[in-house]
């Protein structure tokens, strides 16, 4: 019935278009006054009426009779006729069909750009609502400051600190890898690489950036982790098979293109005059970069790092596949830790019970994650904007 309803509305709109167009064209008499708007605009305006009326009554029909009812398409056709008829009747020589139609289009465009706002509202409300339900059974104090996480244990405990520690541990490792690599890559690309070398190097970074995280997770879990475990044990360390190091390393490599491309942009935005000033005093290229370019680009680079941190904290697949589930409170990179995203994924994959704190805790974690990354992103984007304005 859904398909039929949609098809019928479209059909009615086509008929309305044709009728409106023909009607308007018929108003013109040879040698007489001209139409204000082209006949096709009269058609479009009438068709828009048919669409709006048809959709409105179809939705109403679906609510009253049920979506599968035979009456829904009937209501749609009726609605289309009711919507189109007055608009059809309005067309006259002076009628501004184009202006009216364009007003409808504008409203439609505004509505589309409102979807972004709706999405944010949707996210906030969906996590907030379930989080509040969660806090009815678990106190926020226990959640935020508890040091024991075991949502499936008896009794279940929901201390968020070990997850935070695990997330931060992996993030620190990732940034320790991606920071220097990304920044030096960007400096090399922006300041040293010849255009030919750039055309070869840029795709490398772009391909790496485009690799799905599930692939990186596979690589981390099946290749990097055994490698680290093997070499670690050869050196006499005890290494967990799902070590924070493996996940962190691969995540770091994932973030290299992000830091590198953001920093590249920022470094390129530093005006050439600043560099020339430094060269003119006899500074070498690296001295100019270290003493002039980087300090000038610092705000942008800081924001690149913030976006990178936000990316690392929110990354899911690599840690789900390569980091563990054990909520250990440790700073040892060779031990297994778990992260916020791992727990969200684990708690919500499989059976979900929206009356148990186990499932709801995932939303509380999501809430924390969302606001943490939101703040980081907001500040970072603000800094970039300020920075751009400074040199524009």
């Amino acid at each position, binding site marked *: 019935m859904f398909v039929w309803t949609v098809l019928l509305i479209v059909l009615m709109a086509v008929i309305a278009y044709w009728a409106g167009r023909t009607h308007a064209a018929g108003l013109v008499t040879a040698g007489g006054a*001209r*139409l*204000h708007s*082209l*006949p096709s605009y009269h058609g479009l305006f009438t068709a828009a009426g048919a669409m709006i009326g048809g959709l409105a009554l179809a939705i109403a029909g679906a609510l009253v009779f049920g979506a599968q009812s035979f009456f829904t398409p009937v209501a749609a056709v009726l609605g289309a006729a009711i919507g189109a008829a007055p608009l059809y009747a309005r067309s006259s020589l002076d009628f*501004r069909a*184009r*202006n009216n139609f364009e007003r409808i289009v504008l409203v439609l465009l505004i509505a589309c750009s409102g979807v972004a706002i709706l999405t944010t509202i949707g996210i906030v409300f969906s996590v907030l609502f379930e989080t509040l339900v969660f806090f009815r059974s678990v106190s926020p104090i226990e959640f935020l400051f508890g040091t024991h996480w075991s949502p499936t244990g008896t009794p279940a405990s929901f201390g968020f600190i070990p997850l935070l520690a695990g997330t931060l541990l992996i993030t620190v490792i990732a940034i320790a890898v991606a920071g220097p690599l990304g920044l030096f890559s960007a400096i090399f690309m922006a300041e040293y690489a010849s255009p030919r070398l750039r055309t070869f190097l840029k795709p490398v970074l772009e391909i790496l950036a485009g690799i799905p995280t599930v692939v990186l997770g596979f690589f981390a879990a099946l290749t990097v982790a055994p490698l680290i475990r093997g070499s670690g044990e050869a050196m006499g360390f005890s290494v967990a098979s799902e070590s924070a190091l493996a996940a962190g390393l691969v995540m770091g490599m994932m973030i290299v293109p992000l830091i590198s491309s953001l920093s590249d942009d920022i470094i390129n935005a530093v005006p050439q005059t600043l560099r020339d000033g430094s060269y003119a005093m006899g500074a070498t290229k690296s001295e100019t970069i270290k003493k002039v370019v980087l300090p000038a680009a610092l705000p942008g680079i800081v924001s690149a790092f913030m976006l990178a941190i936000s990316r690392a904290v929110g990354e899911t697949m690599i840690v789900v596949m390569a980091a563990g589930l054990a909520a250990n409170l440790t700073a040892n990179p060779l031990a297994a830790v778990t992260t916020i995203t791992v727990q969200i994924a684990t708690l919500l994959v499989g059976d979900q019970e929206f009356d148990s704190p186990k499932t709801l805790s995932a939303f509380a974690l999501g809430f924390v994650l969302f606001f943490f990354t939101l703040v980081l992103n907001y500040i970072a984007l603000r800094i970039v904007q300020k920075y751009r304005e400074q040199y524009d």
Partner: protein
Amino acid sequence: MNAPVHHQTLVTPAHPKALASGQFKVTARDVDVYYGEKQAIKDLSIDIPDRSVSAFIGPSGCGKSTFLRCINRMNDTIPTCRVTGDIKVDGNDIYDPNIDVVQLRAKVGMVFQKPNPFPKSIYENVAYGPRIHGLATNKTELDEIVEKSLRKAGLWEEVKDRLQHPGTGLSGGQQQRLCIARAIAVNPEVILMDEPCSALDPIATARIEELIDELRQNYCIVIVTHSMQQAARVSQLTAFFHLGTLVEYGDTDEMFTAPQEKRTQDYITGRFG
């Protein structure tokens, strides 16, 4: 820059032909234009006769382009721009809320500083306007309009064999004539030209100037120019703008030989500008 504030209620050209017709195509009264807080035009009034070329001259930033863009409301595209006062075309207030700006611009066409043909074929460039205004009911009529417009713009002989070639492939001067053809195609009564030759070489410029002189027979043409020689060559009337005010408007020959205002004199003789 401490010129006395120059209040004038009306500058009427002393052009005999215009006076004789007694009919002005464009009239403006007490027009003020603001960009945000900044006032770009102060208290401007002018009467522009039909079937003549009026040149707007003056130093950069004097408001001549701004005023030109007010006449077909192209300033509407600048969000911070605000226009007060009266501007009438054929006695109709163009800033009246009931005026459809689209129909106004069909009546008051415009040619821009840099030739800006659409990246489409030559034919499509000219046919676009007639099409959106519904000026042709069939292909033959449209073809006729295109040919007529290109002929009027003096471009027909050069392009008649390659109407389907992209308009952007023409030379700069041809592109500008294409833009003029495009403007003519919708049967405007007024054609505004915003420094139409500033991006062209002298030969192309001469060709456009000839064209402007021919078009004068049928249209009211207003041209903004930086070149006083050009103003002297193509226009019958010249308006001198300075610091957002209209200093003087009158017969071109008189203006260049015996300006009434000292500032005009100074500008024309090259003391500033």
